[in-house]
């Protein structure tokens, strides 16, 4: 288990229009785009929407391979979705493998649904690919800011999210360390069937929690030592400001999305 293989749409540093776009605009556009995908009911339109992926990757200056990598954790589910549809949709018989018959409609459905799932993941990954976790939580804090009036702890929740994101890699490497320590003392993570292997991870959890709590204590101490006192009256180093370019993106993006959704009724 190394940190890299777990990068699901991990931030890719570059200077691009998408990177400098206001994270709130990015979040809103992404939500609209993902919703739009669910309105598409036609394979051709879905494929056309898929063409947006290389376009966005080019604009964002993120290598295609890096974008595709975001699909890796989902590969199994994508393939499963595809084959379930291929073999379990009634329709004209295409081919038979043992007791299973593939149908023409199944092939179509399989392509449609796995493409839909893949696109949802890919489009959402563009937000995390081009936005640092800190910007992202700032955006969330700003979007939900009005709720502060109702005494909801928006700042605190956003801070918790930032910290959680920051500590994911740390916890992964911590888990790796504890695994090594247990392996050194005869624990077995490598052999046996999948259930036995999954079971061997249970003794990993308690030490991991203990160390997470220890880290949390240390972090709280370090933050207090540097004078952190919460959301009230706190100023920011980077203030989110909407620029003209952000407005253009927002309007342009919504227009494209409206087009995608509109096709459903136009065709």
């Amino acid at each position: 288990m190394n940190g890299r293989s777990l990068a699901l749409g991990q931030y890719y540093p570059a200077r691009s229009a998408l990177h400098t776009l206001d994270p709130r605009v990015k979040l809103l556009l992404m939500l609209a785009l993902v919703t739009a995908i669910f309105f598409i009911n036609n394979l051709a339109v879905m494929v056309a929407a898929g063409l947006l992926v290389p376009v966005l990757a080019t604009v964002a200056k993120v290598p295609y391979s890096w974008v595709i990598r975001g699909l890796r954790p989902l590969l199994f589910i994508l393939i499963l979705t595809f084959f379930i549809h291929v073999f379990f949709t009634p329709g004209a018989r295409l081919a038979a493998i043992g007791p299973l018959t593939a149908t023409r409609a199944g092939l179509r459905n399989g392509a449609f649904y796995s493409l839909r799932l893949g696109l949802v993941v890919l489009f959402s990954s563009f937000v995390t690919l081009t936005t640092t976790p800190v910007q992202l939580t700032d955006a969330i804090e700003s979007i939900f800011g009005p709720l502060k009036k109702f005494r909801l702890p928006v700042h605190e929740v956003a801070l918790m999210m930032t910290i959680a994101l920051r500590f994911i890699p740390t916890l992964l490497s911590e888990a790796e360390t504890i695994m090594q320590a247990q392996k050194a003392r005869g624990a077995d993570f490598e052999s046996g069937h999948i259930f036995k292997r999954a079971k061997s991870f249970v003794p990993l959890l308690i030490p991991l929690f203990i160390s997470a709590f220890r880290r949390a204590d240390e972090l709280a101490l370090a933050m207090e030592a540097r004078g952190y006192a919460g959301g009230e009256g706190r100023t920011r180093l980077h203030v989110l400001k909407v620029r003209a370019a952000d407005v253009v993106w927002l309007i342009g993006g919504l227009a494209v999305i409206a087009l995608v959704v509109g096709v459903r009724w136009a065709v």
Partner: protein
Amino acid sequence: MLVELGAVGYTYLPRSEAAAQALADVSLTVGSGEFIALIGPTGSGKSTLVQIMAGLVKPTSGRVKFEGNDIWLEKARLPERRRLVGLVFQEPEKQLFEMTVEDDVAFWPRNAGVSAEAVPEMTRAALEAVGLDYPSYRERSPFTLSGGEMRRVAIAGIVVMNPRVLILDESTVGLDARGRMDLAGRIRALNQKDTAIVMVSHDMDEVAESADRVIMLAQGGIVFDGPPREAFKQTDLLAGIDLELPQVARIAARLRRQGLLGGRLPLTLAEIESDILTAFGKVPE
């Protein structure tokens, strides 16, 4: 041969921009009952090498054998082999993970299916072998211990498995002088009982006192493998990798330059004592 490495290489983060080759073409053997010191400057690959010897890290090239069998070809037997080649990590706090000292040391016996009645006795014996009092430490949390105590508990967690080879990665660092002497004596005692020892160390006095074989590592490759007396004659090699001679040998070298001492190169206090007595015409006891 207990452990045998054949042309082992290791690269961290292979196939990435940050790829770093830590070991290249390392071959060595560890025979039963040997006491080997592994020395080399910071970053030379010592920790990486011992993790590979212990079967915790799979080399990116080459073979690791235990009693003649390639350990990575028989994954089902890896846990058993990791017991037989026990490694104490460089950072003891990374080795400890249970809530109490007792649970931590008892991790292996409990998981290995040792009968419940036998576990406390094994735990006690392991803690005493590293010089810790069982009743006063068993309930403590490992993370409230001092650095030196943590090291001892970490060693106990490995000693309890009764390994054939015990590998210690700088395990005497952070102890006071007395503690270091005490622990060194305990490690020698384990060696007397036929446990092979591989000790990573920066302390040449410790190496001279204990080891009967020295392996020198520099930039991921072995540059010397032989008896300590030979090792400390390689002054160019040692200077090239910023290692000092043991204090005793340095004093002997000065006395030699003054023409006061001749003959062999003494390495331990006992040796230089008897050499000096002989030089003064006295008979060493």
